């Protein structure tokens, strides 16, 4: 009986959190279109997020490109299809691996950072101080950060994709003596708008999810340093789960759209 009530309580908490996050999201859209616009803070956040994540996204993308090519090469060679390598890697990275890996890295890097920063501001009454000074902390802290992640994640995805493809080219160049021009010609020949557009749209939603969940967890952080830790941690866990759900919906929607 206690196990059953435990499950019931967990479900209730989860549903309550979903409800609160939905309200938070609605408030974000409402506040985004209301003056004053905190443009300076938005630019500062864009710079900070892009700058802080660029190296990590670059290294991750590069290694993914290398590993994907190294692991796939023997199989393709067995079937005499090694010339398909640029197309295969290109489509994989642009459509799925690039956006997903970049978003997961950013969920850890940016999402937890936002959760911890806002959580710490909540605990030390900085958000209250902002409100008392006549500033809308939701607009200044949340709207700017969510917009910044929404715009910066697609940019980071593009950079990550490019570096990933370069990593793949390096392996092909070293193992198969393929030139830079030939490799990238094959990549771009195999890509269609149907590969790029859904992936880019998906990246915007990834950015939105990272910003919203990070801000939500931090803004309503529990008391004390433990609360801040929980906010940062749950921001990463919840965002990662949400990213997979968004990815599934995006792939499913794109599939239906192209079938029509």
């Amino acid at each position: 009986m206690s196990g059953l009530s435990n499950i019931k309580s967990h479900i209730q908490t989860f549903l309550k959190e979903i409800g609160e996050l939905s309200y938070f999201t609605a408030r974000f859209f409402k506040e985004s279109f209301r003056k004053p616009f905190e443009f300076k803070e938005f630019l500062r956040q864009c710079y900070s997020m892009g700058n802080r994540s660029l190296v990590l996204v670059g290294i991750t993308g590069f290694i993914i490109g290398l590993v994907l090519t190294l692991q796939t090469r023997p199989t393709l060679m067995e079937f005499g299809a090694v010339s398909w390598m640029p197309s295969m890697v290109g489509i994989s990275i642009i459509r799925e691996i690039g956006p997903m890996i970049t978003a997961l890295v950013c969920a850890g890097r940016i999402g937890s950072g936002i959760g911890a920063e806002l959580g710490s501001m909540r605990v030390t009454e900085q958000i209250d101080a902002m409100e008392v000074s006549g500033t809308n902390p939701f607009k200044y802290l949340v709207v700017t950060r969510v917009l910044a992640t929404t715009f910066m994640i697609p940019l980071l995805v593009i950079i990550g994709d490019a570096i990933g493809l370069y990593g793949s080219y390096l392996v092909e160049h070293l193992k198969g003596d393929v030139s830079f021009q030939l490799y990238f010609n094959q990549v771009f020949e195999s890509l269609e708008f149907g590969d790029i557009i859904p992936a880019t749209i998906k990246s915007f939603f990834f950015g939105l999810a990272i910003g919203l969940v990070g801000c939500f967890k931090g803004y309503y952080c529990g008391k004390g340093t433990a609360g801040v830790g929980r906010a940062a941690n749950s921001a990463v866990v919840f965002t990662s789960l949400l990213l997979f759900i968004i990815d599934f919906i995006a792939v499913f929607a794109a599939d239906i759209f192209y079938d029509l």
Partner: protein
Amino acid sequence: MKESNTILPQGKVTGTQEIVLEIKNLNKSFGDNHVLKNFNMKLYKGENLVIMGKSGSGKSVMIKCLVGLIQADSGIISVMHKDITTLNQTALDILRSDIGFLFQGSALYDSMTVRENLEFPLRRHSSRFEKNMDTNTLVMEALENVGLAHAIDLMPAELSGGMQRRVALARTLILQPKIILYDEPTSGLDPITAKEIIILMQDIQKKYNTSSLIITHDVDCARAISDRMVLLIDGTNYAEGTFDALSVSTDPKVKAFFKH
């Protein structure tokens, strides 16, 4: 309306003085915990009113209700003849610029320098000042008031606890508020620094003729600064009067505050 159990001599307050802040029958509960029960209070122009109570007695909840950081369950909160419970957000923000709030933990924005901390409320309420008023002059004047002009370009993390409290006081002063709310202004400070803060508070009151509401459980602070005191016990204003009158009270609950 329930009045205080003990009404003692009223300090420098006279019947002709203007009331700048008034609370009538304020109630606030968190679940089953009734923190404030029909709390009543008046603050007169130019007065230093100390609200004293044990930790967890609802002092901070009461002061946060005053600026709309916490919504009261019922009651009237009148600040400069405006009931804040009925104001819209814009009107509340304008009214808040007339109220300074010194937070218990200083609540300095830790991602900003001291200068930026002081400029932050100015940017929101620039209309309060003449068009050609130099922001830098206002910041310097506020910092000179608290003896910290040299710390203008430091980050809050580089300041000691006492210095942080003084910068927070400067930030509170910069909008030249008519009422200042102090939430435990001396808590966490050594006796010498605490005394410095008390002297600063007295100087500010004399210089700007502000009305001050001071929440504390520090008897020395109350003795030094209060014109009048209210003892908050069990969520109600249990006793009111001057420090001298209350300190000789025979009521056991009142005596408990002064026995050391």
